[in-house]
């Protein structure tokens, strides 16, 4: 698990591609607006300022926005709006993001049919952003564009997405793409904490949700080159402990099945895990996950 050492690969004049994943889980945002006063609308206003600031930093900076909704996502691909006029460009980007967001929320009929504990499709959004970055990087033969992913997360971890999120993290690590995470509200998202740690990004849990913009501008705006010279806030310590599949307890020493890699507390767990394995191999493991 080596964190990325960026210093050698990143240059001062490199263009930056920011893929912004906004968690728009409506259930959580409604709750958040009631408890802390930060509504999705306000958060989006903050994010707009952030996006514009990113575009203003360098003329060839680019941004793509992906909404990670409860079951639909859309991607607003704004890199085609090449315009010599900076302000024009802000407008195009803002309009596009706002219009697509509106479309997403207009479909209210669906909203009531969501299950109570529905989670945001972070794994899908991450896979999509990696594909998009892959496309941009392939087109950019001289390696001028340096991508990074920034997730604003409000939803809790979904254990069902564990394997797919981990797959995304490892591919991002392989491609050298840092994943930054801003946890706006709620419990620490352990999967995303690992994502930031493994890929060499920053993980920050907002102490005051109202100060969203402040944290965006200070912590998440600096590009990959500038970061080598800055000491940014965020937690260093990440827990990589494993949870056993039988009791969901965090364990220090455990028994790991040599075939399916499921973990159990003691040798008696063999029967439990193997029982699941015989019934439904994939479900037995997916519901496990680790913390």
């Amino acid at each position, binding site marked *: *698990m080596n964190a990325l050492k960026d210093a050698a690969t990143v240059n001062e004049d490199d263009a930056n591609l920011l893929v912004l994943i906004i968690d728009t889980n409506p259930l959580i945002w409604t709750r958040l607006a009631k408890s802390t006063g930060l509504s999705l609308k306000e958060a989006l206003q903050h994010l707009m300022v952030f996006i514009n600031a990113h575009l203003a930093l360098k003329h060839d900076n680019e941004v793509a926005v992906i909404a990670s909704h*409860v*079951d*639909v*996502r859309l*991607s607003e691909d704004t890199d085609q709006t090449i315009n010599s006029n900076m302000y024009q460009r802000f407008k195009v980007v803002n309009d596009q993001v706002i219009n697509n967001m509106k479309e997403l929320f207009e479909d209210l009929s669906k909203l009531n049919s969501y299950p109570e504990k*529905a989670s945001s*499709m972070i*794994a*899908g*959004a991450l*896979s*999509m952003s*990696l*594909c*998009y970055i*892959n*496309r941009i990087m*392939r087109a950019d033969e001289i390696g001028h564009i340096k991508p990074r992913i920034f997730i604003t997360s409000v939803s809790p971890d979904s254990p069902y*997405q*564990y*394997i*797919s999120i*981990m*797959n*995304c*993290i*490892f*591919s991002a690590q*392989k*491609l050298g793409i840092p994943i930054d995470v801003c946890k706006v509200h709620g419990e620490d998202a352990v999967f995303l904490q*690992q994502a930031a740690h493994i890929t060499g990004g920053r993980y920050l849990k907002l102490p005051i949700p109202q100060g969203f913009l402040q944290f965006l501008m200070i912590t998440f705006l600096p590009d990959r080159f500038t970061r080598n010279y800055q000491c940014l806030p965020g937690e*260093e*310590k*990440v*827990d*990589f*402990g*494993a949870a056993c599949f039988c009791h969901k307890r965090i*364990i*220090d*020493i*455990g*028994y*790991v*099945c*040599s*075939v*399916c*890699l499921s*973990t*159990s507390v003691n*040798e008696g*767990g*063999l029967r439990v895990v*193997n029982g699941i394995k015989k019934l439904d191999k*994939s479900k037995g*493991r997916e519901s496990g996950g*680790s*913390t």
Partner: protein
Amino acid sequence: MSKQHKQKNLTEEFIDVDDEIQTNTQQTGYAWEEEYKRSWDVLQEDEDGSLKRTVENLQQRKRKRLFRDTATIRRGIIRHMFLIIDLSEAMMEKDLRPSRLDLTLSYAEQFILEYFDQNPISQLAIIVTKGGYAEKISDLTGNPMDNIRALKNKKNTDTDGEPSLQNSLEMARSTLIHVPSHGSREILIIMGSLTTCDPGDIYDTIDNLVNENIRVSVVGLAAEVQICKLMCKKTKGTYGVVLNEAHFKDLLFEIIPPPPVSNTQNKAELVIMGFPSSVSDSSPSLCACHSKPTIGGYICARCHSKICDLPTDCPVCELTLVSSPHLARSYHHLFPINNFVEVPWNNNSVSPTHCFSCQIPFPSFLGVRGGAVPIETSGRYKCNRCQQHFCIDCDVFVHEVIHNCPGCLAAIH
């Protein structure tokens, strides 16, 4: 030992008289001839007089789409592998650029890194063979850097005399028979020489390898050798002879995904492992692995000694120490995603105009039908589970790197 000469690229600049005879007797011709067979016939202009579409189409066909076995099969996730590198004088040949030896060493390094990336809780050791004897330059270890350091050491990599296949196999076997039965036992040989200098009957060694369930794979750099072929066949390994530099890498990297194992070969077992917690002290303390003062590290869950890096075996109590992401790294081998199917042109009336994941526009059907050049592929590939369409780049990327289908993960099923 019987040898069977396989045709290979000649490096001589001049045309040999033998050339003609060789091409006549073997119908296939040279590898480079195959690739450029009448390529001008395919090239045609479209209605605008541009070649862009035809060129794109050619590139698309060249790009290989790997079709993988997507059934849930048992794989040997915990592997124990010996990498045997031939350091005989035959390795000094320059038919592979810059030389067989230099290329082998640089590919071996990449192989080791990729091997540990995809098989994080596996182990690897390196044996070199030269001058008729075999020498172990690194022990079975879970740390890629130990192996690479051994390879980088110039003392370990000078060439001499003939290799000894039997000596190196016996040396690997003597360690592999002590490996617990839940792990796979494998040997990978990179062989540049066509001959070997053995002290006894190599057929006995092969029979022993078969009895011990040790899988032997060989990558030959010169020509096909019968004894290697026989050995790989008997031990259910793979045997390949390289055609060129890129093919060498392909052959080597084919060994990296964990191989399927039969249910009878090894039983499911529970392996005891420790999940150490990370520490960062304010003042440096000695680590148990290198006896050097370090600030951060991990504390062994059983004996509380400090180690530098994961995954490893605790140097004090020999407990296998991993962290949960290491286990997660292997999951994609256990749950492969389905292959995408190519979408034919005729059912494209309602299909999306952009690739689902990267938003690149697809070539439009109407534009092509009106054109002079019929394009065989539509450039769309569909996931049968979520019915989304993807471009070829995303298809390859999704299956080779991410191992997630963006479409399936985008909606609740």
